[in-house]
């Protein structure tokens, strides 16, 4: 198991290095970082000095090395647009995005798994059929359209929920949370549903098909033949066996949620990193874009690692690999 973890860590590091290189390449080869800092009337000798100070003319491996070292310390340079340090801009907005993503993921899991279990246990009931049809529509609707529809229904027609912003936030050190105020909680409902709906349909469909698959297996038939109650068969035996693929997809989707937050944050003017990224794309603010890329890459890699670890918790076959022969 240790060997497995080490192998995964090395892989993760390689992926991060690749992402960092793409990000570095964007940073270095698009536009001239110096030209973006200096004004038009900056004297030539000052520019030369700045070039030296920034190390722009060093050999590429050196610059890449410096980029990685700086990145690990959270130093990503200055935004072209606001000339603020990119690291701080992102750190300021990260809590908003993480809270939104987390609430959306919890919503997707909390609703998607039971719905999928139900649809898998009773595939022929009208409720299951309805859920499947609606979920197909859910998959076809672009996220931003769902957001607009929700705003129209709950903010415009019914007027019960806010259509933009985060509501009041409370600061804990560097972390600002909207989850502790009434207005903050109200503000997160629509964005979280918008963001989570697609993942919800995905998780529901996945759990349903896995559940139907598992229910056909011999060990479920044998569990029934042993006279176990429906509850023990369905939730004790069947559900646990559907978890491995569900964990995989959910893990990957969690990363996707953070990326998809770009859209939701735009629709609801949610002050998170997604909105920041969008603005940086519009203004070709390369440092922010490349930093965002590194951040997303990091999130994906971490989630993948966690998913791999969870396999060990769920599936004993992996845990004991290497000493299976002991059973003979």
């Amino acid at each position, binding site marked *: 198991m240790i060997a497995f973890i080490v192998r995964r860590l090395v892989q993760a590091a390689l992926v991060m290095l690749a*992402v960092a290189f793409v990000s570095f390449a964007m940073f270095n080869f698009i536009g001239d970082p110096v030209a973006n800092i200096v004004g038009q009337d900056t004297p030539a000798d000052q520019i030369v000095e700045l070039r030296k100070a920034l190390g722009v003319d060093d050999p590429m491996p050196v610059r890449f090395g410096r980029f990685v070292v700086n990145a690990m310390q959270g130093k990503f340079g200055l935004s072209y647009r606001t000339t603020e340090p990119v690291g701080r801009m992102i750190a300021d907005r990260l809590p908003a995005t993480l809270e939104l993503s987390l609430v959306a993921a919890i919503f997707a899991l909390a609703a998607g798994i039971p719905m999928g279990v139900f649809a898998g246990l009773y595939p022929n009931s009208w409720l299951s059929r309805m859920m499947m049809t609606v979920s197909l529509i859910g998959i*076809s609707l672009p996220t*931003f359209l769902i957001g607009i529809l929700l705003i129209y229904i709950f903010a415009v027609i019914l007027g019960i929920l806010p259509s933009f912003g985060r509501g009041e936030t409370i600061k804990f050190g560097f972390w600002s949370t909207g989850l502790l105020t009434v207005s903050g909680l109200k503000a997160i409902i629509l964005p979280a549903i918008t963001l989570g709906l697609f993942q919800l349909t995905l998780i529901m469909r996945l759990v349903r098909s896995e559940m139907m698959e598992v229910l056909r297996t011999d060990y479920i038939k044998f569990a029934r033949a042993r006279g176990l109650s429906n509850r023990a068969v369905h939730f004790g035996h069947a559900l646990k066996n559907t978890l491995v693929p569900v964990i995989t997809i959910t893990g990957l989707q969690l990363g996707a949620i953070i990326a998809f937050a770009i859209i939701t944050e735009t629709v609801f003017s949610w002050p998170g990193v997604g909105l920041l990224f969008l603005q940086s794309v519009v203004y*070709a603010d390369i440092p922010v874009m490349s930093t965002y890329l590194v951040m*997303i890459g990091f999130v994906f890699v971490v989630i993948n690692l966690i998913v791999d670890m969870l396999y060990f918790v769920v599936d004993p076959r992996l845990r004991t690999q290497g000493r299976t022969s002991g059973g003979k």
Partner: protein
Amino acid sequence: MNLLAEYWRRGRDSDIWYSFTRNKLVMASAAITLLFFLGAYGAPLLAPHNPFDLASLNLSDGFKPPAWEEGGEPKFLLGTDDQGRDILSTIMYGSRTSLSVGFLAVVFAMTLGIALGLLAGYMGGAVDAFIMRVADVQLSFPAILIAMLVDGVTRGLLGADQHSKAAIYVLIVSIGLSYWVQYARTVRGQVLVEKNKEYVQAARVIGLPGPLIALRHVLPNVLGPVLVIATINLALAVITEATLSFLGVGLPPTQPSLGTLINTGQQFLLSGEWWITIFPGAALAILVLSVNLLGDWLRDALNPKLR
């Protein structure tokens, strides 16, 4: 003519046609998709107004609700936007842009994917490893993110003015770049299967160039899966384009697609002019749903094993 009749007869007797006629939902989807193509590409002839002919626009026609609502006018069936443009006509023209971008992006992704898949499968070794590794890494990022990055990078390279002129091509390339992986994987897999078959070996013995053999023998075998991927990708590409345009990093308002229309209409939602954004939104949803249903059905019909 005889040949046509022959094809028609053969098509009519096939399993695919049978499964098509048995499924009402699929027939409806096909009809709707066809209707969209007709409406979109026949827009200059069929649309009641030309929303881009500035001379015909009249600001006093602005914010007209749909014809059946109070204050609506019959000549603007689905109402007008702030500048007095007929919503139905903008939807038709917008669908044309959306479908064109989607279609070309799929063609681009398909070409790139097939080429890289052939290359990876045929060359093997380091080339294969490199291409497939890139594919793996890219696949773990959402397509929309890739498309946005490509868009942002080109913006940085071209500058805002140039970028806006080239927007449609940038969009096609950026969406295409984000969807090539599936084609490459499918084609590569098939190449690996075909590569060791005797006729390929034989063809190589008589001195035919390798890539040509691969192309000739592999393509017919992957046509089915590639078609399925392309159909489902068309829906995805249309969504991606709409999303990018909605976010303001896609097509400029001078070249509106469905996404652009929804974006510009969104600001009027809060003040009650819902039709400006809801109708293009509904059009987009119906189009994507129909294409998705078609793709799903096609996958099942071409590959009964997967059912």
